[in-house]
């Protein structure tokens, strides 16, 4: 989806992707100063809070392993609650990074450069948070940790390849490893810059170790470019496949509200939607805090707003189609599922979802809102919440009233559910803070290709 195709699009180049006056040296100085400079006191306070959150996660998982899933609110018939909501939510957030890095790279969207590193890191951390849930939501995680993998064993047992959960294992683990590789490869030239800029021996040694002997030679650049492009090609289908496969968990189930063919595209769009929202949520404070407005410009924000609008509309279409299909099918169970969403005991969550994911993004049609950091941030927070509500609507709300009315029940999350959820947010933020502190959050060498000098050279060829 090219920006030019978006409704209300302005001619490209209207806004710069890099503020004027920057050259290679100033880019390196500015970006690496975040790592090498002194951090303000608020950074440590925020880091401490986030780390505290991660400890809450550790405590709740420890309690979980020693006591059992029963500390959560999951029950009969709602076998999956916060655990799988959070899993899908985090996986969705983890979509933006690869989309920005790979697909926009292939589409030669040069505005991606300033946000890709950061978005990829976010992807990795989100996937890490997501992976906690499928493991720990099982009754016996010490067995689930390896029984879901196909490995030769004396029991002569393979996992059940017909189960969407096994597809999940493959899809998510592939995605996690390719994303990590892609991110790391992209980091190598910058790690070498960091090695060269570092003052202290241990910093030089550490960056040196991870830069894998990068010497900026033409051969290195040649290999690098090929590898990066190949990985981008490899990641591109993954962006579409991961969330499609995650949606199969539901789409291949029987439950009304799950059993729908629309799920794969609807989930992918939702994931991109959520991912961009999270990038905005994090990028807006970050660029302000570290004075990176020159690199993450209003153009970036505007473009991300457009992507959010488009994917949000796709998601909204999905909601409408769910209602339509239920009505059009005439299926009793589907119709009741819709009735339950609209008027059941959890209908307030459905309406919150509509407010957050459909109504709240409508201002994005107007440039004014796309270019205002405040409105963008507020809207992105709406979407973050909205996408969480969406998963609540899909998972517990479908399960709590299915085929036999006798087994209907309510789902009441406990404080441990919330502790695990907020704990995973703490872990995510702590990892983000660490990332910003030790690695260049913006790809320096790629930013340099946006400088006027780089352009002239390009034109001269």
């Amino acid at each position, binding site marked *: 989806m090219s920006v030019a195709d978006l409704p209300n699009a302005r001619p490209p180049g209207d806004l710069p992707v890099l503020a004027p006056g920057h050259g290679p040296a100033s880019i390196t100085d500015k970006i690496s100063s975040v790592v090498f400079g002194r951090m303000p006191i608020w950074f440590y306070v925020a880091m401490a809070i986030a780390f505290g959150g991660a400890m809450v996660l550790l405590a709740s998982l420890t309690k979980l392993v020693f006591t059992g899933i029963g500390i959560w609110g999951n029950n009969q*018939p709602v076998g999956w609650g916060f655990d799988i909501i959070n899993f899908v939510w985090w996986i969705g957030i983890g979509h933006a990074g690869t989309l920005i890095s790979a697909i926009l790279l292939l589409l030669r969207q040069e505005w991606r450069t300033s946000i890709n590193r950061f978005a990829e890191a976010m992807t990795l951390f989100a996937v890490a948070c997501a992976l906690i849930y499928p493991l720990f939501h099982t009754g016996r995680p010490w067995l689930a940790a390896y029984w879901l993998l196909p490995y030769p064993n004396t029991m002569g047992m393979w996992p059940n390849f017909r189960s969407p959960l096994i597809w999940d294992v493959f899809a998510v683990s592939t995605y996690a490893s390719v994303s990590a590789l892609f991110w790391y490869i992209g980091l190598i030239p910058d790690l070498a810059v960091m090695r060269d800029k570092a003052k202290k021996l241990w910093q030089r040694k550490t960056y040196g170790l991870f830069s894998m002997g990068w010497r900026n030679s033409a051969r290195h650049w040649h290999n690098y470019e090929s590898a990066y492009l190949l990985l981008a090609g490899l990641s591109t289908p993954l962006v579409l496949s991961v969330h499609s496969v995650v949606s199969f968990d539901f789409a291949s189930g029987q439950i009304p509200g799950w059993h729908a063919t629309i799920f794969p595209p609807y989930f992918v769009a939702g994931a991109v939607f959520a991912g961009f929202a999270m990038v905005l949520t994090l990028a807006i404070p970050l660029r302000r805090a570290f004075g990176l407005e020159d690199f993450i410009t209003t153009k970036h924000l505007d473009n991300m707003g457009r992507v959010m609008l488009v994917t949000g509309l796709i998601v909204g279409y999905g909601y409408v189609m769910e209602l339509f299909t239920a009505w059009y099918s005439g299926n009793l169970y589907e119709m009741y599922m819709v009735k339950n969403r609209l008027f059941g005991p959890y209908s307030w969550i459905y309406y919150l979802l509509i407010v957050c994911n459909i109504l709240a993004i409508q201002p994005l049609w107007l440039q004014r809102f796309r270019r205002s950091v405040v409105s963008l941030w507020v809207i992105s927070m709406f979407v973050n919440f909205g996408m969480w509500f969406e998963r609540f609507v899909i998972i517990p709300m479908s399960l709590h009233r299915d085929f036999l009315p006798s087994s209907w029940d*309510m789902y009441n999350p406990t404080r441990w559910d919330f502790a695990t959820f907020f704990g995973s947010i703490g872990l995510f933020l702590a990892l983000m803070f660490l990332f910003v502190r030790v690695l260049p959050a913006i790809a320096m060498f790629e930013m340099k290709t946006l400088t006027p000098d780089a352009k002239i050279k390009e034109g001269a060829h």
Partner: protein
Amino acid sequence: MSDVSSPVPTAAPAGDCHAEWKRPPAEKPPLDLATVRGRLEGQRGPQYWRSLEEVAATPEFEELLHREFPRFAAEWPAGVSRRNFLQLAGASLGLAGLTACTRQPIERIVPYVKQPEEILPGRPLHFATAATLSGFATGLLVESHEGRPTKIEGNPDHPASQGATDAVTQASILGLYDPDRSQTTLELGRISTWRGLATALMAALGEQSAKSGAGLRILTGPVTGPTEAALMEQLLADYPEAVWHRWDPLGADHQRRGVAAAFGAPHSIRYEVGRADVLVALDADFLTQGAGAVRHAREFAARRRVTVDGPQMNRLYVAEVSPSPTGSVADHRLPVRPSQLPALVRALAARVGVDGVAAPADLEPRLERFAAAAAADLAAHRGRALVVAGESLPAAAHALIAAINDALGATGETVVYGEPIEARPVDGLASLADLARALRAGAVDLLVISGVNPVYDAPADLDFAAALHQDKTLRVHHGLYADETAEHCQWHLPAAHYLESWGDARAVDGTVSLVQPLIEPLYGGKSLAELIAALLGRTEASGYDLLQEHWQEKLGEPSFEDAFRRALHDGLVAGSALVPAAVALAPDAAAAAAAALAAAPAASGLELALRPDASVLDGRFANNGWLQELPKPITKLTWDNPVMLSPRTAEALGVHNEDLVEIEAGGRRLSAPAWILPGQADGTALLHLGYGRRRAGRIADGLGVSAFALQTSEARWNLAGVTVRKARGTKPLACTQGHYAIRGWLADETEEAERRHLVRVGTLERFRDNPAFAADYEHEGLDPNLSLMPGFDYSRGHAWAMTIDLGACTGCNACVVACQAENNIPVVGQDQVRRGREMHWIRIDRYFRGGLDEPEGIVSQPIVCMQCEQAPCEVVCPVAATVHSSDGLNDMVYNRCVGTRYCSNNCPYKVRRFNFLLYQDWETPQFKLQRNPDVSVRSRGVMEKCTYCVQRINRVRIAAERDGRRVEDGAIQTACQQACPSQAIHFGDLNDPASKVAATKRDPRNYVLLGELGTRPRTSYLAVVQNPNPELAG
């Protein structure tokens, strides 16, 4: 196992009560062993023996010796000889060492050195015995694994069981192993011994023999066992002034008085439900409660099993206060206030032509209509009609109903009268009131209470606890638990469970069953017979000897040993049923009864009905976790007894589910949560008995409120002029079906269940027109075999399948407890039930039909695993922990399960159960004994579900394969099927066309649940056929 026998002190009674307890004052405090021992302690060496000599010479010691060793008293010479002295000295030294050591012996597991007869490890044995409830016996076969009873089944040869059981009997196996049972004799709350108690009893009885037992009172429940009765007769002969009181909170006093009024004698009464074409039940849950219920359910269901060849069935009219299982299967169900029932009886009597009875003038039109139709129907089926009344109806109503039945020609046909089953039948309440009066008058020196708990369950106006507190009375309590009554007695003696004791009891038709123990008493408890024998001076008599002694002469010919063994083997004494008595209605009994009913003051205001709880009855089973967690029929509540209100009454009071309400009746008040129950009569409140226990055990203490606190001697079952007020606050209740507001949730549930055709109900008329009416609800042109996946050929080997006849199911819960016992299903507790995590593998769904204010019907639908041929759970399991067997079972591999719960999410029937926490008790040694060794005990994090009792299938299948024969139809019975009193469940091999299950699958009423999903369930249902009276239609 060593823990089992170690005496663990149960909670000592509160300290302040102790102060009030005083030993019976005696002229001179007799010297007992403790005093002797105290005197002897602190002296050492040679002086010790000299002192004994001195002590033994005292007159007190002589007396002690006689009390302590009555049998050997004569052997003790006047002086101590050198020989005796040395014997005692040696024994004392030898035994002295034993007391010092408290270390438990090391336990070694060794194989049998000598193989006990008939025991093959891993192969269970079954023994016949009998359980009693209010004295009435139900014959049982108890499964025993290497000496541990694990599962109770009905005895097919026994008239009261016919192979089935009810829920409380199924659960009694857990009662045996209850760790909260009293484990030691207690004196003033401190551990004592049987010997110590026997000493105290002998002393007290010694006084009594002087005054021919004038101060001796014995209080028991109803006794039907010939041995116990004979012993008691002997005791009463020895102490002619002694009084034997009987108390049973569930006793049929009204019925007995009514029958006595009608026929002049307190005849026993038995219903031949199977012979009746038209039945009217007035507030009588005769299919699930009271004596003979199991048999009634079977006979009733047999008359409702319509076939194409014989489309005939009986018809049941029920008028009741609150919906009961019996009401739920009625063809016409009328909610009535308790005060309306006597008028209804009079209307029926007048219309069927009982002499001297006039119809009441001011009957409500809907009652009038009901009475007219029912009476006409009854009259049209003379000799094949039956009217059954519940205990809540006054005695006069029972007398009038006896007259109605007599007028209908039912006497001797559908109602059979006979000699009383009970020994020396008395009116329980009068008897208890007598005792209370005697206690207050100070006329009781020794009171022995056995197996009853009047401190908890006597009507509040008797204030029995206060009556019991007489300083001069020595009170001895004998029971399974050190309960509320034990708290108010100086002595408590643990009773032996029926599975631990020898005895006998009569069934509702008089047949004598022998009770044989399956295990040695776990805590050294005594049976009632042993206790009575002790009162007769035979403190060491064993129950076995007592039983044999009694039957020696009766079974003497030709060989006692053979006859006794046969009776033990069969579980009953053949030919011991009572012969029906010829009865004649007293001339003016009906008119007098009708006049008494008409003269009763009219009830005003809200009426409160107190009824036995479906699970724990009057509280005697309160400490049974299976029963507490058993969803009660209709309400599906567990673990509590809220106040039931009809939707309209609740609305008028402004009360919602779980709101606390305050009930005030006759100046007594209590506060309980409310529960709204469609089908209950408007203007009534209902509270179940059996809750509010204080000293029942860890399970029951503190659950609910005690309805006995509102009960009075005049109004035990129905209280009028009651006020119910909304109080502040709510109390959460644990319900397994429908956890939300009545209008929103239940209305939705009812509407959707009807729309989805989960329970298919047709009338007999419709069945005659179109026997396959259940298929009308199927989608047209839908091929349930349509599948993308290749099918599996099940035509070779076995194809296990089940059908459940919804027309027969009363929702009595026997199957649920049977399944729990068979399959080691844990109890999760009230909090976990509230979270929707109950573990029952079989559940009974309840759906109301029609409006909530006046439901047209209530249906029960047992749900087991459907064992789908195309099982949605199997595809989604990532580790292949649930897989299909070649005979069509959906197997669950616990060891492989990692607990993703995906299978449960994808199960359209939601039959899977997950161990969210460690629900199994892995610690309590008693529970280890109960478990079925053929079924895995699941740990936390594992999914489980109904297996069709695969362990039972495989035991029979393997034996058949070994012998090279085919499995016979009926050889395999699932636990639920075996327990079902109404034989609603059929199980067998579909590949055997002659099997019962194959026949029921061919029944036109057969249908599957959610067949359109293509799951191809192996479990299917037979639609309900009802037989409404056309006159009452519309």
